[in-house]
């Protein structure tokens, strides 16, 4: 160990230039002769340099720290920080509160919609085919009506009513079928024939579940119709059957035709058919005919967001409704059995014959 120390001391003295000339010459000779000593000299030099540089680094860091301590870093920080806009700051500071508030708001809206039945209300996406007539016109006509004050005797009815739909005869002696939603809440219901004559009616039976209403013309000026040219078809009609309806979405009769596109109605309602006929508000309550002129349904509604999807209540439910009418509410016998005389005719001739059996339904309420 002491030998080792001596060598290290020699190396140090040699590197620091502390040796005498003689010693130096001897040491250089030793270095040249012994390679291991030569390496040791180089190693020692390198290591001591590293120690010295390390010391310098520490010293420099200490000086820098001393300078740094003189800086008011917090003041500088406030000055140099880019402050985001107040929206961003607000979000950063209060985002949990904002999130909770938003969730509560959404929950409140959804539960309100749920409890008020908005979410499962079929009408949200469903518009009854019933025409609502302009309020202004109504007010004006109510005025005229009041002045004349003879609505029943007047064959030419001028009052268009609050609501308008379509109805059709199911017997020659004045029983008319329409949709319950057309005459609901009505004070009085009139039907107007294709020739413009208007008749007062009485509601004899309603079946809200299937949206069916049966009216009886009570007006003394009504003369029985010729025997019905159509029958009510009892069996289901197949998809693809060409179908048509006529009704009163406006003052004159309008034809709607298309195909039977589904054996179920709105949202899979099995009491209805779906048809591609383009129908308008006011066709409600009209008859849906098959190609031969048999009635297969009562036009009922359409899907408001999809064009070309209208619905009709199947005739079997109408027949059931007719059967269910209490006998004491009928003043005359209701004989719904017609004889089909339309089968061989072309569509224009069919419609010409049918016109007299399809009525505009006008509804008055306060």
């Amino acid at each position: 160990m002491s030998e080792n120390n001596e060598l290290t001391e020699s190396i140090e003295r040699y590197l620091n230039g502390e040796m005498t000339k003689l010693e130096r010459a001897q040491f250089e000779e030793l270095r040249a002769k012994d390679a291991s000593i030569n390496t040791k000299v180089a190693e020692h030099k390198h290591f001591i340099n590293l120690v010295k540089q390390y010391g310098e680094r520490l010293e420099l860091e200490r000086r820098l720290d001393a300078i740094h301590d003189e800086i008011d870093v917090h003041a500088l920080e406030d000055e140099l920080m880019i402050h985001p806009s107040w929206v961003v700051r607000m979000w950063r500071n209060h985002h949990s509160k904002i999130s909770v508030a938003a969730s509560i708001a959404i929950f409140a809206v959804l539960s309100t919609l749920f409890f008020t039945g908005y979410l499962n209300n079929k009408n949200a996406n469903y518009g009854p085919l019933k025409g609502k007539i302009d309020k202004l016109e109504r007010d004006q006509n109510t005025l005229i009506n009041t002045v004349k004050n003879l609505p029943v005797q007047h064959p030419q009815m001028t009052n268009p009513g609050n609501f308008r739909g379509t109805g059709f005869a199911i017997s020659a002696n004045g029983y008319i079928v329409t949709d319950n939603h057309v005459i609901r809440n009505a004070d009085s219901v009139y039907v107007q024939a294709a020739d413009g004559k208007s008749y007062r009616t009485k509601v004899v039976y309603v079946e809200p579940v299937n949206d069916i209403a049966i009216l009886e013309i009570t007006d003394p000026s009504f003369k029985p119709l010729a025997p019905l040219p159509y029958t009510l078809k009892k069996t289901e009609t197949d998809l693809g059957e060409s179908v048509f309806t006529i009704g009163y979405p406006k003052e004159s009769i309008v034809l709607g035709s298309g195909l039977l596109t589904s054996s179920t109605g709105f949202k899979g309602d099995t009491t209805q058919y779906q048809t591609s006929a383009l129908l308008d508000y006011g066709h409600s309550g009209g008859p849906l005919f098959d190609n031969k002129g048999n009635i297969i349904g009562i036009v009922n509604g359409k899907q408001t967001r999809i064009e070309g999807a209208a619905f009709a209540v199947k005739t079997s439910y109408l027949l059931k409704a007719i059967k269910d009418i209490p006998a004491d509410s009928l003043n005359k016998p209701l004989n719904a059995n017609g004889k089909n005389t339309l089968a061989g005719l072309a569509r224009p001739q069919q419609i010409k014959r049918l016109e007299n059996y399809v009525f505009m339904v006008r509804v008055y309420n306060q």
Partner: protein
Amino acid sequence: MSKEINSGIPTDSEVILGILNNSENVLKRLYLAYFPMILQLVINNNGNTDDAKDIYQEAIIVLYNKVKTGDFELSSKLKTYIYSICRRLWLKRLTQMNRYGGDIKDFQEFLVVDDETEKNNERDIQFNKMGSALQQLGEPCKTIIEDFYINNKSMQEICEEFGYTNADNAKTQKYKCLQRLKKLFFQQK
């Protein structure tokens, strides 16, 4: 020397000369001149004031060593050079901490620099090793080594300070310490 003349932002050549002459005044003015710029860079890019201090001092040390070793060539404004080094160092550190979001807000023009910070990194590793070797060495060895090799005290002074009876004892002690320091240093990975 009047203080007014030697305050404020030093010129670039003043800085070079000042570092070569170990001027405390120039170092201080250099430090104060550009620290706000780096603080702005770091605190607006996911860092805090301590990060800014670390980064800035590292950059000053890089500059200092380059000037001292004589391989510093000023090819741009010193301000741009310091900003570029700090920017590079901060990006590296952000990536290491997984805090780098893919873009950085810049406040100055900058150059692309890389090799010098790498070289400095190697030296830092050596210094870290040396620091922990000295810690493990313990007293009185640590102080003897520091006093003799770093603070350039004579063996006579050290002898008196530690109460050795003669200089030879102190010398023997010093060589033992150096031997152990080397061993500790090279043992580290």
